[in-house]
């Protein structure tokens, strides 16, 4: 008898999907499978993030790779009875692109063709809680190749030749970093995985850890072998409970299979991995601060040198790499340095994962070769701006980065090009803004973040950023002057030059870059006392267009302060002295008669 190919129903287990109704979908699918006695033929699996976060919960059926989006728990019955039992696709749940075309498979999606998945190679494909599934997809093959016949220096050379640069923000050569750690001899060394993904709006590391934890564990072991370290530590945010749980499972399974622990694969190499928790401090993404936090101290950075490679965790040589960087290691070992170096631009090799979010149609996780343009990312992969509005800016690099504008749409995205235009690659958050976003408010938003997260150790960052924030507050309240704009810029430059660590040195970037690219908007705030985007409450006035007003009195009834007057069936008026600019009237008006001036 021929064995029937086992079907898999992959339910996205990423946070966005499972926080939506993904968990209930998963449970109901399992119930339906049981009810139809299909347990032996169909396997329901929690997979990693598919990257289609705005369309979750997402379900994929293998073989065939049919993708269903926005699946509700009640749809489980139909999926099982129609698709699984009768082989008929459930039309209404099929994935549709922003223009309404029905797509069945991932590769039919125009945006997918621009993507290249190296880091996310197994996310949404394997069951992250099953090591055998991971092994079937080449997990630990690179480790076995390394242990079977490569010297530490060979591995380091391969990584150096590949041109891989740190994905956490710094962009330093990974191979070089390993080499320095290798050359510092000590009785104990450490490999640290930095999973303290603190940038607001970034979720790529979380998705890798949730979707393919073994790729990180394997790379840490390879790094340990190369720099001669016996111990690995993963520093992860306590805010990521699902990622923590998956890591724990993965570590336990790897130990059970002899892929971690003593004498790995009979090579005599010992390597163990432990998890350490962060506790909500952005600065702990900085490697010296991270190390202090792992030692149980306040996560304050210290001056480099000494670099962690010389004196890190407990004073021992320590190599710190970010999750995404580590996820690139195994493919490089397996496919070779020249394969990796063949992807990307001259000085930035490989791919980059971006978390696309904000005012964009396809919110989600994407991976593109370095050198892809912003236009391709936003319009082809991202499906354009929501509600057909006009693109204004894309923010990269989080609170340390800057804004890219329309004139930057066609530059190839890589480390050096982004730095040249005053932003930075950062960890990969890419937030898209449209015409309704006020850039002064955006700069203020990031400064608020920095002020809150500044550890307070050095004065330029602690006091300087506070003053910057105050100045911006002033400007958004209509109290700023033209001289304030120069003052802003000067202060930014001083903070950049004199702060102790990367946080302070990059914190003025959002201000500098918006000031550079949207100077007219700042000037409108200070000279005309107007906010062109209509976001700064103190600078706007609600106004009723008489021609459009039918006198329905809806606005007057909803106004909490009685600022609107007028007779029934006559045009109404807003008294600007009483109005508190809450916007309730505008929401209520059915005739578009109320505008902001």
């Amino acid at each position, binding site marked *: 008898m021929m064995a029937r190919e086992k079907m898999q129903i992959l339910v996205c287990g990423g946070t966005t999907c499972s926080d939506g109704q993904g968990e209930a979908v998963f449970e109901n699918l399992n119930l339906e499978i049981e009810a139809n006695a299909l347990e032996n033929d169909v396997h329901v699996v929690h997979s990693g993030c598919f990257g289609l*976060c705005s369309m979750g919960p997402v379900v994929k059926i293998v073989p065939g790779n049919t993708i269903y989006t926005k699946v509700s728990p009640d749809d489980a019955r139909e999926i099982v009875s129609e698709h699984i039992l009768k082989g008929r696709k459930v039309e209404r749940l099929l994935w549709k692109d922003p223009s309404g075309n029905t797509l069945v498979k991932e590769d039919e999606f125009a945006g997918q063709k621009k993507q290249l998945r190296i880091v996310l190679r197994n996310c949404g494909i394997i069951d992250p809680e099953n090591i055998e599934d991971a092994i079937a997809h080449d997990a630990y093959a690179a480790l076995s190749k390394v242990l079977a016949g490569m010297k530490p220096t060979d591995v380091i050379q391969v990584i150096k030749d590949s041109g891989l640069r740190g994905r956490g923000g710094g962009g330093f050569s990974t191979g070089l970093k390993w080499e320095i750690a290798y050359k510092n001899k000590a009785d104990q060394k450490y490999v640290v995985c930095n999973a303290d993904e603190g*940038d*607001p709006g970034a979720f790529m590391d979380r998705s890798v850890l949730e979707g393919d934890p073994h790729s990180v564990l394997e790379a840490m072991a390879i790094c340990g072998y190369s720099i001669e370290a016996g111990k690995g530590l993963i520093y992860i945010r306590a*805010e990521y409970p699902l990622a923590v749980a998956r890591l724990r499972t993965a570590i336990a399974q790897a130990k059970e299979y002899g892929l971690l622990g003593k004498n790995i694969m009979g090579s005599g190499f010992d390597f163990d991995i432990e998890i*350490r928790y962060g506790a*909500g401090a952005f600065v702990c993404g900085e490697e010296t601060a991270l190390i202090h936090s792992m030692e149980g*101290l306040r996560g304050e950075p210290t001056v480099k040198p000494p670099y962690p490679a010389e004196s890190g965790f407990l004073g021992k040589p320590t190599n710190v790499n970010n999750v995404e960087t580590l996820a690139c290691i195994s493919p490089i070992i397996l496919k070779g340095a020249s394969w990796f170096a063949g992807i990307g631009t001259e000085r930035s090799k490989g791919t980059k994962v971006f978390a696309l*979010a904000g*005012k964009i149609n396809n919110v989600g996780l994407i991976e593109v070769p370095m050198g892809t343009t912003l236009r391709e990312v936003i319009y082809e992969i991202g499906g354009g701006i929501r509600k057909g509005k006009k693109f204004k800016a894309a923010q990269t690099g989080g609170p340390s980065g800057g804004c890219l504008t329309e004139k930057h749409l066609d530059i190839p995205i890589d480390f050096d090009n982004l730095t040249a235009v005053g932003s930075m690659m950062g960890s990969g958050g890419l937030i898209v803004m449209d015409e309704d976003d006020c850039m002064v408010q955006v700069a203020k938003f990031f400064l608020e*973040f920095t002020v809150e997260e500044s550890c307070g150790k050095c004065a330029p960052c602690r006091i300087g950023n506070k003053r910057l924030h105050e100045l911006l507050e002033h400007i958004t309240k209509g109290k700023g002057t033209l001289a304030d704009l120069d003052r802003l810029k000067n202060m930014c430059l001083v903070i950049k030059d004199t702060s102790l660590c990367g946080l302070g040195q990059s914190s003025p970037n959002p201000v500098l870059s918006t000031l550079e690219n949207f100077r007219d908007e700042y000037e409108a705030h200070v000279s005309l006392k107007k906010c062109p985007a209509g976001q700064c409450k103190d600078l706007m006035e609600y106004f009723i267009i008489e021609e459009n007003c039918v006198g329905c009195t809806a606005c007057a009834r909803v106004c909490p302060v009685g600022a609107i007057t007028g007779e029934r069936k006559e045009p109404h008026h807003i008294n600007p002295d009483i109005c508190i600019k809450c916007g309730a009237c505008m929401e209520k008006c059915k005739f578009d008669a109320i505008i902001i001036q």
Partner: protein
Amino acid sequence: MSSIKIELRQEDVDKIKDICASFNNEPQELINVLHKCQEHFGYLPAEIQEVVSQELSIPVAKIYGVITFYSFFTMTPKGKHPISICMGTACYVRGAEKVLDEFKKELGLEVGQTSKDGKFSLSSLRCVGACGLAPVVMIGDKTYGRVAPDDVKDILREYE
């Protein structure tokens, strides 16, 4: 330090000692110990810090320094239903601030406060990583996505 004075029962003291012992009373495990204590007690008042101090041989001042440094740790008890509004960039761009204002108005609480009956506490946090659902609100372990200011009343009604 914390204005609330509490009396630890013997079993509470034992629990803290157990937690410390499970990490071999190693000073470098302080943050892990504090995570476990907060998980169990809900918050970390001075009295708990004193016991941890003795067990791990770290001065209370240092422990206080660590607790106040990290935003995850709190010295005041959270409400029965802790409400967190995500203020990450994606949520912010999609109007999280207006949602937060609505919660403040409905509950009469500021960020960081707990209602008098101990039912709700309000906080903002930075990015839960569910940017596809922005703006996101979390109440306890439950996540609400794409929340509009108008939804706030209905959401709160679920907890009456």
